[in-house]
């Protein structure tokens, strides 16, 4: 089950907690992984953590449209094989209430969290459609469905990712290429570690499974959608949120 031997996977945002777990789990299932992110030194560390075999590194700043356009080709070059699995995991936030949100906060988040995944999908699809195979998994967020005060830009980008995925899934379906979304809820990462205890307790209180999620909870969903076993699942959003929002 979920055997990814001989598959090549590109994971963007591989320096972050969730990206790292995704790369680790895909690698553990046998895939060759290409780690991408902006911080080259951290990428090298992550690659070393995976033992150095079947792992490659390509630094790229996805706020640059040209870098996003070229990333798939660069990943295929270092891996020496066509891309089977694309995981759009890179993203950033510029949280603030709308009345204080600057155009720049809006456009930066839309650019990196929505436009760059589109560019990566477009580049990956060209080859995948020709080869009649491929898996694209995009990491959205529960706030794309529920909304969240202070995250108008981020929620819009993540909701956009769902609409984009459904459209591309319809375009690519006849070629056996699937596109799906994983929408995490509250995940324990370096970012949430710093929250005050009381606030964390309140957050956990709203989750039926009574704990924060882990990066591995998200990564396992990605492994499933990347596998041959998920061949008949496309255009879907898999919510991984401990039951916090049952949608």
């Amino acid at each position, binding site marked *: 089950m979920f055997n990814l031997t001989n598959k090549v996977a590109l994971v963007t945002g591989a320096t972050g907690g969730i990206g790292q777990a995704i790369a680790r789990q895909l690698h553990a299932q046998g895939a060759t992984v290409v780690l991408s992110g902006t911080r080259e030194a951290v990428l090298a560390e992550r690659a070393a953590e995976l033992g150095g075999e079947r792992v490659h590194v390509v630094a790229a700043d996805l706020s640059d449209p040209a870098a996003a356009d070229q990333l798939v080709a660069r990943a295929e070059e270092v891996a020496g094989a066509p891309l089977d699995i694309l995981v759009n995991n890179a993203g950033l936030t510029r949280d603030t209430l709308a009345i204080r949100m600057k155009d720049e906060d809006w456009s930066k988040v839309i650019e990196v969290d929505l436009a760059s995944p589109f560019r990566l999908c477009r580049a990956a699809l*060209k080859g995948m*459609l*020709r080869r009649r195979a491929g898996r694209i998994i995009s990491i959205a967020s529960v706030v794309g469905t529920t909304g969240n005060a202070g995250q108008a830009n981020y929620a819009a980008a993540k909701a956009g990712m769902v609409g984009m995925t459904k459209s591309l899934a319809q*375009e690519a379906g*006849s*070629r056996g290429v699937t596109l799906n979304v994983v929408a995490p809820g509250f995940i324990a990462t370096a970012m949430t570690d710093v929250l005050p205890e009381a606030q964390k307790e309140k957050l956990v209180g709203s989750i039926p499974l009574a704990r924060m999620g882990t990066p591995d909870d998200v990564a396992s969903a990605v492994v499933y959608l990347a596998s041959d076993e998920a061949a008949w699942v496309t255009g879907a959003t898999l919510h991984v949120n401990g039951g916090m929002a049952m949608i």
Partner: protein
Amino acid sequence: MSEIADKVKKIVVEHLGVEESKVTPEASFIDDLGADSLDTVELVMAFEEAFNVEIPEDAAEKITTVKDAIDYIEAQKAA
């Protein structure tokens, strides 16, 4: 047959996996050669790459037969 016509035919044969004899000038990609809408878009992109021309969306929509493709590319190359 012109060099362009030969090359167009070759691309169509390769891309759609059809027999060369079926790729007549009048053959319609969709009705005669079994292409779907995604194939026609991929064909247009293959023509663009092979001939180094740009085929805008409105022109691409009118390219429905092998002859349409040859005529369009020949006109672009002559211009």
